[in-house]
């Protein structure tokens, strides 16, 4: 307990300076803006802004990127409630009751409860993160390459369970991400893999170019397919502070959402989107009158909004403690740390306690800044919905190009970015989710290293994974999850089969 408090104190000391606070503020501002504007998801925003953080110290870089992620979660609820268009995927369920409340003239209460619920859940998540993460790191230090290998495989398998579409397509995406990660020189043997005799590919493909292409460029290509449509904000916002009866109805859903969101965020492959959907389903099931959900129940806003913010906090635990990103966003944060020369994992708390605790402290500060930004400035955010997309998208294209170039100062990266943009846009059309590809791309170098180390240290080859209890347990968990995926898919009947 004492160690945690002193570590956290050190973390606050590291970030409570004007420069870091400025970047957290900018991150919160950009994140909220991204969340408010439908069409640009948090992943696109994070990938576009990743290069701008390269020159910053690691703590500041992660603090800013985390603030963008948090901000987009907060901001996403604004458009969901006011115009029935989710700013990002985790706010989809907020539309159901949030927009209904707005139509009843209670937009202010919905917006206020969304912001306050998010703040409470975010803070809850960070407090648990403080205690849970160091304990997990202490445990993880004892793990060897086979256990790490098992953990990473589990992370990838969980992604298949969590994706919305076809598990088989998820499998293809994981394979493709792993294949892209092997491009370039093999660090162990020095052999060149799939470089097609080009000098540019000898160092592989840059993560910045890959993610900006897959999430930034692909998003724009998908958006320009449709004719531009204006967004009309007609709702009156009214009083933002929820009434006593709103609080009475919401405090339990907020607590439940916080707990559920935290648990879902911990699971590799889980994240804010799954958390918000599960919370909505849970609230509806527990309600005295489930049929009233979708017609303006404040519980339908409070629970999911709390759940998605708690999931953001708990998603940091596998990243900081094990060095394993649970979803595409934390994979990007991991990429940012690696670009800054910091390897996340159990040794992070030992080797870089300032970074470990600084990141946690920055989450606290970011949450407070977001609450201040969200409630009083809601009118300003609404005005931003009127920025025409025809101006926004070309600017993002230019930003993507300059951002990609500035990460490595290599023109070839721009071609990589464009190629991955076209690939991502094409894959999305056929229901291929891109998150497993990015996750596999980030995890594969570590997975390959652990796999090789495990096989080298084992006299019995691959049997080492069954001889070590933790590794065997993790692989057994993978098998159970794959079985679950098969059972879940078999529940969907073929044409002509009885339902």
């Amino acid at each position, binding site marked *: 307990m004492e160690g945690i408090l002193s570590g956290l104190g050190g973390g606050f000391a590291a970030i409570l300076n004007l420069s870091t606070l400025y970047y957290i503020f900018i991150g919160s501002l950009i994140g909220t803006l991204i969340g408010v504007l439908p069409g640009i998801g948090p992943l696109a925003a994070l990938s576009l802004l990743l290069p701008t953080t390269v020159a910053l110290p690691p703590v500041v870089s992660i603090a800013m990127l985390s603030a963008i992620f948090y901000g987009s979660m907060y901001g996403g609820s604004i458009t969901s409630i006011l115009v029935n268009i989710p700013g990002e995927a985790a706010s989809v369920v907020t539309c159901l009751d949030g927009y209904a409340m707005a139509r009843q003239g209670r937009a202010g209460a919905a917006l206020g409860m969304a912001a306050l619920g998010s703040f409470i859940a975010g803070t809850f998540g960070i407090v648990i993160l403080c205690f849970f993460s160091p304990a997990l790191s202490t445990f993880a230090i004892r793990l060897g390459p086979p256990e790490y290998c098992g953990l990473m495989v589990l992370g990838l398998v969980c992604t298949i369970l969590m994706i919305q579409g076809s598990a*088989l397509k998820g499998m293809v995406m994981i394979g493709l991400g792993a294949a892209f990660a092997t491009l370039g020189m093999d660090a162990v043997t020095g052999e060149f893999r799939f470089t097609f005799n080009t000098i540019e590919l000898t160092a592989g493909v840059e993560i910045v170019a890959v993610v900006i292409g897959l999430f930034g460029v692909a998003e724009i290509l998908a958006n320009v397919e449709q004719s531009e449509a204006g967004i009309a904000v007609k709702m009156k916002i009214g009083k933002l502070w929820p009434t006593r009866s709103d609080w009475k109805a919401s405090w339990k859903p907020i607590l439940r959402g916080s707990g559920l969101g935290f648990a879902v965020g911990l699971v590799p492959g889980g994240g804010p989107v799954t958390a918000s959907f599960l919370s909505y389903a849970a609230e509806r099931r527990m309600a005295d009158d489930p049929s009233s959900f979708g017609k303006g129940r404040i519980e339908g806003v409070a629970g999911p909004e709390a759940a998605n913010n708690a999931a953001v906090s708990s998603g940091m635990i596998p990243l900081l403690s094990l060095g394993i990103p649970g979803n595409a966003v934390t994979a990007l944060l991991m990429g940012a740390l690696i670009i800054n020369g910091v390897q996340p994992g159990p040794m992070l708390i030992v080797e870089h306690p300032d970074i470990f605790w600084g990141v946690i402290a920055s989450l606290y500060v970011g949450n407070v800044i977001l609450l201040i930004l969200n409630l009083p400035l809601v009118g300003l955010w609404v005005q931003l919905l009127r920025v025409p997309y025809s101006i926004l998208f070309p600017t993002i294209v230019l930003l993507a190009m300059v951002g990609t170039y500035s990460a490595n100062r290599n023109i070839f990266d721009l071609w990589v970015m464009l190629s991955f943009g076209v690939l991502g846009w094409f894959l999305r059309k056929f229901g291929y989710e891109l998150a497993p590809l990015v996750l596999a791309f980030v995890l594969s170098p570590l997975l390959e290293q652990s796999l090789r180390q495990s096989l080298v240290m084992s006299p019995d080859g691959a049997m080492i994974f069954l001889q070590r209890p933790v590794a065997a347990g993790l692989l057994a968990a993978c098998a159970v999850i794959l079985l679950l995926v098969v059972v879940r898919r078999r529940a969907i009947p073929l044409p002509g089969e009885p339902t």
Partner: protein
Amino acid sequence: MPGLDVGVSLFWVLFGLALGQQSIALGLGGPGGPGSGMFPLLAALLIFAGGAGSLVQSLLRHGAPVPGDPVEERFWPEPRSAMRVGLLILVMAAMIFAVPYLGFALSGAIGMPLLLRTIAPHFSWWLAVLVGVIAAACVHLLFAVLLGTPLPRGPLGF
């Protein structure tokens, strides 16, 4: 797009086979430990298995979409979608090609109005040029001036 979806699945099967064959050629390992081709082979197996599974699933359903699989109904949602996407890719490629010769600021200032007109043809050329120049100047200021990133310069010195 069930036909195209089957085609994409078939592509993964063939891609997985080709990648697997290339991985074996790299070497799977020996007494010194695993070789360079072992991990790519595992990736190839995943791609092959996923593609083959999707292909079989599509064939079993006689091309009918799998419930819950978010495949878009039509490749192009609107008649002009293909032109907009094609032009956007073309302008971006031209901008990337021009960057080493014209620099980012000038390529952006020329490319942005073209992108604007591609996305929103109702914009007048004058407005497109104005917005393009302002946006290119803002991005240049952010990266080259504020963040100090050394960006390629053009004949005008920026």
